[in-house]
């Protein structure tokens, strides 16, 4: 029996209490034996370290194999993700660059042409001017009341009809706006009467099959009779 054999028995817990005591005393008393115990423990520690390293290598192989087998799926996932991003971009760009709808065109035209209305500084007591100032100050409800109060006493007032219609259109009260623009149309004495165009724009904004059909006819009339608003009529009719 070598010392290593005895040492192995001790660390495997195979000794009796008396043998254990003798073993521990021998370490304290016998430097050569203590050296062998140190060697035994060192060998165990390095073996354990090697075993762990060997397992790490096994795990590495397993992991790499797993990565390889997963990689086609991962590639596909990456392609799909990239395709989704591209599709999102395309859709986003399309929405940004796509032609505006007829309703958007009409709204844009109304805001460009009638966003601010001309105020004459000559007669501050003129109730029309008062309404226009309120309109330009974005006090639409109050402006409408002013124009309607004029119409209450003078129902055929061309400017009051025009502006009451425009304010109603801006307030998205399309039926009321149409009523004012229809009355406005009867004023043949005005060379530049945009009543037909304004009716068409209001109908486009109101939407719906019936309104659009009527709007289309009115816009065609604008072109045929060479009335005010030919440019916007042409644009609206281009892709009808």
């Amino acid at each position, binding site marked *: 029996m070598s010392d290593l054999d005895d040492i192995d028995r001790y660390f495997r817990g195979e000794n009796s209490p008396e043998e254990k005591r003798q073993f521990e005393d021998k*370490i304290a008393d016998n430097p050569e034996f*203590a050296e062998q115990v140190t*060697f035994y423990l060192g*060998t165990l520690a390095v073996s*354990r*370290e090697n075993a762990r390293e060997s397992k790490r290598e096994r795990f590495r192989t*397993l992991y790499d194999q797993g990565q390889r087998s997963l990689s086609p799926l991962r590639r596909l996932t990456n392609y799909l993700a990239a395709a989704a991003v591209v599709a999102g971009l395309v859709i986003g760009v399309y929405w940004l660059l796509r032609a505006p709808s007829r309703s958007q065109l009409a709204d844009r035209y109304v805001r460009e042409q009638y966003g601010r209305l001309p105020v004459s500084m000559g007669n501050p007591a003129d109730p029309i001017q008062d309404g226009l100032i309120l309109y330009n100050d974005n006090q639409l409800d109050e402006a409408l009341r002013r124009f309607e109060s004029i119409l209450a006493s003078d129902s055929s007032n061309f400017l009051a009809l025009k502006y009451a219609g425009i304010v109603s259109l801006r307030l998205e009260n399309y039926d009321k706006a149409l009523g004012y623009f229809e009355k406005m149309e009867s004023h043949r004495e005005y060379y530049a009467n945009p009543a037909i165009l304004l009716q068409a724009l209001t109908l486009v904004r109101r939407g719906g099959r019936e309104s659009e059909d009527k709007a289309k006819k009115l816009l065609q009339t604008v072109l045929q009779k060479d009335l005010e608003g030919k440019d916007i009529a042409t644009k609206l009719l281009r892709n009808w």
Partner: protein
Amino acid sequence: MERPVSLGGTDREIIEQLVKGGVERRKSEERLFTRFSYFIREGMRQHGLPEEDIFSAYSDTILTAIDQILSSNFEGRSSLKTYLYQIFHHKCVDLIRKKTSNKNSVNRSETLSDSLQRLSDAAKSVLQQLIEKADWNLLRERMTRLDDKCRQMLLLWGDNYSDREIAAALSYKSPDVVKTSRVRCMEKLRRMYYPT
């Protein structure tokens, strides 16, 4: 006291296979590693560390868990996933703090201190002084010079395989033969370590 939760079927299977030992143990170690290997990707994303570092942390997590299961320190109070994730998280944090400077030396000192716990204070004190003076790199290098059979034998011994399991794995006639052979291998190593 916290009430132990019942482990899922797969958790229980893995633990039973591990404890069973032999070939089954090796299989269950690999199964355990593979089962939660997605922690590596999650760890990379969560901690922003390189794959190699996270892989190392995950491997150490599995090795620690195996040790804990085999020494019955894992009591099944949580699922294996929860248990492993806690260990893994701590190892990742250690990595970030750069506390784990040398894994090998940590493992070795843990093994040595575990072994020393058995001894009386007087014996322990003597051995601690000798351990500090020893040239472990030389021992490690000498071990690579052993023949394959001896190296395999010591590897399994270091992995806590019993002599019976080693006999089965390396086709020895009996556990006693394994024990004798192992001691012979160690003597061979000792002669290489102390040439004079």
